[in-house]
C-alpha cells in the first residue's frame, strides 16, 4: 500500500462542490477518532446537504467489515497492512505518518531517559504486540538500536499501553506521538532518534464499489487539503 505515490490534490473548493450530495460513509481507524470527527464536521460545513457518517473501530475489524460487504465509501486505515486486506480498495493514498515516542507518567517518576531503559528488567515496560502496527514499528526500532526490550506486557493497541502509563502502572511505553499529544495532561512524551526509522503510514482510499464515489472522492480530497493537514498536524501527525 505504501508504494502509492501521493496523488495530486485538487483544492476542495475548486472541484464540484455542487456535484456531490447524499451521505458519505467513512470507516476510519480508532486512532483517527478525534481528527476525523473534526474533519467530518468541517466537510459537512463546506458541503451543505452532505452528511458524513463515521465508523471508528480497529483497522483490522474495519477491514473485515468491508470485506463482508459493509456499505462504505472511504476507508482510512492506521496501517498499510490492513488496507491491503481490503479487496476493492481502489487506489490508496498515504495521508499522514505517525512517529513513535516514549510515553512516561507525568513527571517521569522512573527517570526514563531513552530506549536503553527498555532493556531494564526492574522497570515496568509496556509495548504494543507485534501484531499491531505500533508493535511492529517498535520491533523495528529496537532492532535498529540493537536493544532487547524486557516488556511486562504486549498491549493489543496503543490506547491500552497509554492507559497503563497514565495510571502509573508502567514506567514507560512506546506509543505514537499523536497518542502522547492526546493524553498530554496525563503523560509526558520523550522523543528519541531511532523513531525516524519506523514511521507508520496511514493510507486512505475511496472504495471501488462505493455507493457515493463522488462524495468519497471529495472527502479524501478534503483530508488531503490544507485544512485537513492543519487538523491532522495539530493532533501530532506528520505530513507524508
Amino acid at each position, binding site marked *: 500500500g505504501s508504494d502509492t505515490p501521493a496523488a495530486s490534490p485538487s483544492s476542495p473548493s475548486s472541484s464540484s462542490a455542487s456535484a456531490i450530495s447524499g451521505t458519505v460513509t467513512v470507516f476510519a481507524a*480508532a*486512532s483517527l*477518532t*478525534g481528527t476525523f470527527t473534526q474533519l467530518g464536521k468541517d466537510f459537512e460545513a463546506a458541503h451543505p446537504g452532505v452528511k458524513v*457518517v*463515521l*465508523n*471508528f*473501530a480497529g483497522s483490522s*475489524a474495519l477491514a*473485515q*467489515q468491508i470485506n*463482508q*460487504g*459493509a*456499505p462504505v465509501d472511504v476507508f482510512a486505515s492506521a496501517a498499510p497492512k490492513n488496507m491491503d486486506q481490503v479487496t476493492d480498495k481502489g487506489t490508496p493514498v498515504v495521508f499522514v505518518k505517525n512517529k513513535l515516542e516514549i510515553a512516561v507518567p507525568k513527571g517521569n517518576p522512573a527517570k526514563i531517559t531513552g530506549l536503553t531503559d527498555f532493556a531494564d528488567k526492574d522497570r515496568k515496560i509496556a509495548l504494543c504486540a507485534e501484531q499491531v502496527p505500533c508493535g511492529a514499528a517498535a520491533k523495528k526500532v529496537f532492532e535498529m538500536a540493537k536493544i532487547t526490550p524486557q516488556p511486562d506486557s504486549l498491549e493489543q493497541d496503543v*490506547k491500552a499501553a497509554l*492507559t497503563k502509563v*497514565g495510571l502509573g502502572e508502567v514506567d514507560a511505553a512506546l506509543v505514537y506521538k499523536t497518542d502522547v499529544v*492526546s*493524553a498530554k495532561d*496525563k503523560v509526558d512524551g520523550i522523543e528519541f532518534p531511532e523513531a525516524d526509522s519506523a514511521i507508520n503510514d496511514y493510507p486512505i482510499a475511496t472504495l471501488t464499489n462505493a455507493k457515493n464515489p463522488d462524495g468519497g472522492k471529495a472527502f479524501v480530497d478534503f483530508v488531503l487539503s490544507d485544512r485537513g493537514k492543519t487538523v491532522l498536524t495539530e493532533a501530532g501527525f506528520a505530513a507524508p
Partner: protein
Amino acid sequence: MSDRRRQRRIGGRLPLVLLLPALLGLAFLLVPLIGLLAQAPWSTLPSRLFSEEVGQALRLSLVCASSATVICLLLGVPLAWLLARAEVPGRGLIRALVTVPLVLPPVVGGVALLLVLGRRGLIGQHLDTWFGISLPFTTAGVIVAEAFVAMPFLVISVEGALRAADPRYEEAAATLGAGRWLTFRRVTLPSIAPGIVAGAVLCWARALGEFGATITFAGNLPGRTTTMPLAVYLALETDPDVAVVLSVVLLAVSVVVLACLRERWISGLR
C-alpha cells in the same frame, strides 16, 4: 421493621463463616466501582452528561438491550425447557453448545455473525437478495449481536430453575387436561419465575454492556449502532475521563433500572 424485631429473626445469628466470604465477595465487586467513582471528574460531569450524543447512545443502549432481552426470552425460555424437559438425543452436547457464545471472545462472535448474517454471509446474502434485509450496520444488527451474546445466560439460568422445580405440579396439570403448552404457560412458567427473572437480568445486563460483537457486526455509527459501550470505547481514544463518566452513567442507569425492576418483580411473585 425495627432493629429489635430484626434481632428476633427466626434463623438465628448469621454464621461468620458465611458472612465473611459474602462481605468479601461484595467488597470485591464494589470496591473497583468505588475506585472508578473516585476518579470520575465530577466537576465537569454535568456538562458532559447532557450532550446529545450521550443521550442518543444511552437511549439506543436501553432500547437494544431490552429488545435483545425480549428476543432472548422468546427463544431462550423454550430452548431451556427443551433442554430440561424433553428427551432430546445428544442433549448434553446441545447444552454445551448453547454455552459456546459465552466462551467465544465477543469480537470473534461478531466475525461469526458477519460470516453468517453479513451481506455476503451464508444466510445474509439470501436475506439481502430476497427480502432486501441487511442486518450489519443497523440497529437491528445491534440487537442481533446482543441477543447472540446474551442468550446463553438466559438459557442456562432458566434451565437450572426448571431442573430444580418439582415436576409433579406439571403432572397435576396434565391430569386436569392441560396440554404441554398450557401447562408450560400456567404452571411451569410461574413456578420458575424467579429463575427467569434472574436469567433476564443477566441477559439484559450482558446485552447492555456488550461491546465486541456489536462493534464488529453492527459497526459504530452514531445514532444507529453506537451504544454506550461503543461510545466509551471511542471516548477512551480521545479522552479517558469522558470514558469514565460515560461508564458511570451506564452503571447508574442500569443500577436504577435493576433495583426498581427486580425488587418489584420479586415481591410481586412471592
